């Protein structure tokens, strides 16, 4: 990337766009509102999980593309690559932790639902 004497000419400054940011706000906000409305209907847990996961993924992707401006351009590609390489770490950290503790509860602890009814 060429050096710029004028910092305002830097590609990361030039990428700012009113249209992109407003679209990012609308798309991400709409996904959250959709999730809110669907959650109010109290669907079955698995269905709710699918709806919420879809809305979250959509919201995060629109934020990545429209707010963060991640793409494969020369100015942004290494940010995109590092994010993609970090995603498995999120999955490992959250997924394996939850899986491990869910298994632990099942094997070593009383059923939480039973414990809860006893506490009432």
């Amino acid at each position: 990337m060429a050096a710029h004497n004028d910092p305002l000419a830097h590609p990361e400054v030039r990428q700012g766009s009113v249209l992109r940011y407003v679209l990012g706000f609308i798309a991400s906000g709409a996904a959250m509102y959709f999730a809110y409305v669907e959650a109010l209907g109290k669907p079955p847990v698995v269905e709710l999980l699918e709806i919420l996961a879809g809305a979250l993924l959509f919201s995060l992707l629109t934020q990545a593309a429209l707010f963060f401006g991640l793409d494969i351009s020369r100015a942004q590609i290494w940010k995109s690559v590092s994010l993609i390489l970090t995603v498995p770490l999120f999955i490992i950290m959250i997924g394996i932790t939850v899986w491990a503790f869910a298994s632990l509860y099942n094997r070593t602890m009383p059923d939480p639902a039973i414990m809860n009814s006893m506490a009432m």
Partner: protein
Amino acid sequence: MASHTQAGADVVLWNASADAHDNISARTYGFWLYLLSDALIIAAVVACYAVLDNPLNAAGGPLGNQFLSASKGLVQTFLVLGSVLSYSLATVALKRGNKLGVGLGMVGAILLAVLFLGIGMGDLAALSAAGNGFARSGYLSCFFTLIVTHALHMGFGILWMLVMLVQIGVFGFTENVVARLLNLRMFWQFQASVWVVVYIYVYLFGGAH
């Protein structure tokens, strides 16, 4: 015998058209890597929350579905997204070198963030006042940790914006100031990304089951 060229003033050792070092890109990329590691800290807290979100760890105290308000969380979601939009529009003004536009965008972002924090901290204070504070149960410890961790990030972002408002006035749009403004844009957008995860998982999923 093969000819051998001696290095000298007439020998081009480097490609003259090669990229020069780009200070702004180096700084924003470094800060981006910091944000990814910060995201892993948030992921660790979310994982902890997911593990402790059950009646066993509530120790007879409330779970999220008994005190969380999805509608209030939605208001907070729009406040944080609005704050990010306001700061992002400030960086569009930065493109034109418009100090007033940048300042107005940042002040708008600060005001919306203060409203967001006011709602969140008010909820935590009410929960504590009802005897359901940080130490009530493992679940509440993790809930408070998650919300306060995000709130501290927001608070630091507000402080950073105030500092940048001063720096813009004193130094103008120098290379250092522009790099900091770009880093702050990523930091601020990151807060919205973290919040939508919290809203979806804690407020909507946790509040509904």
